[in-house]
């Protein structure tokens, strides 16, 4: 079942550290409790997003992988907690 989200962030084509930088800026636009969906085609996001959440204290909700031609889109979900 797909995870419900409120705000979407597209980081396709961007490399480390851009997805994380953009996430840290975008999360400021959410209200507490809302969920941010971050889409990336950089495989590093699979480990980086949980690590970012652990450090910043936001809640990591999970990962979905979607095959799109030759690339995989990694969709990660973060709930703003503070």
């Amino acid at each position, binding site marked *: 079942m797909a995870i419900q989200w409120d705000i979407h962030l597209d980081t396709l084509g961007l490399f*480390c*550290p*851009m997805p*994380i*930088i953009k996430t*840290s800026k975008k999360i400021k636009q959410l209200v507490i409790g809302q969920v941010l969906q971050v889409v990336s085609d950089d495989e590093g996001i699979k480990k980086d997003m949980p690590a*970012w959440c652990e*450090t*910043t204290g936001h809640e990591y909700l999970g990962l979905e992988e979607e095959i799109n031609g030759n690339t995989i889109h990694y969709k990660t979900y973060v709930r703003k907690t503070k």
Partner: protein
Amino acid sequence: MSTTAKLDPQVALAELQERKPDRVTIVVLSGSMDRVMSAFIIATGAASMGMQVTMFFTFWGLNVIRKPGVSSKARDWLRRAFGVLNRGGADTLPLSRFHFWGLGTRMMKLVMRRSRMPGVPELMDMAKDLGVRFIACTTTLGLMGITKDTLLDGIDQFAGVSTYLAEAKDAQVNLFI
């Protein structure tokens, strides 16, 4: 991209004491594009994770924070000559390997541009934007014939080893690149 205004030291200190963020210090000694890029990737990544990041630029690392195309204004000719031979500017850094008189570095930059990867100047702007503090080492500035007025605006401090150690002893991550 906008740069962050200089922090009021007292406000900043009060905020830090309350927040107690993890701290990172990075000594940037190298002036090689690949190494400097790594330094900025770690700096911007850490800042995005809510850490307080300070970068100390020394020796060849000072080339990163020099204004491009501005020649040295050192008083004695030896240092001035050195400042002229040693080109500055974040966009002129050579690769540490495969520079091949500029060809290798140009190829690398082309590949980076094609894949929309930010280079050193862009990463540096981002770091400033995220509140990363820049400190220039005064001793090596003098040694290398680089004068303050030929450095970029927005250098937070000009300082020495004690300032570095005072920061590093309270930091959880200290890197030397």
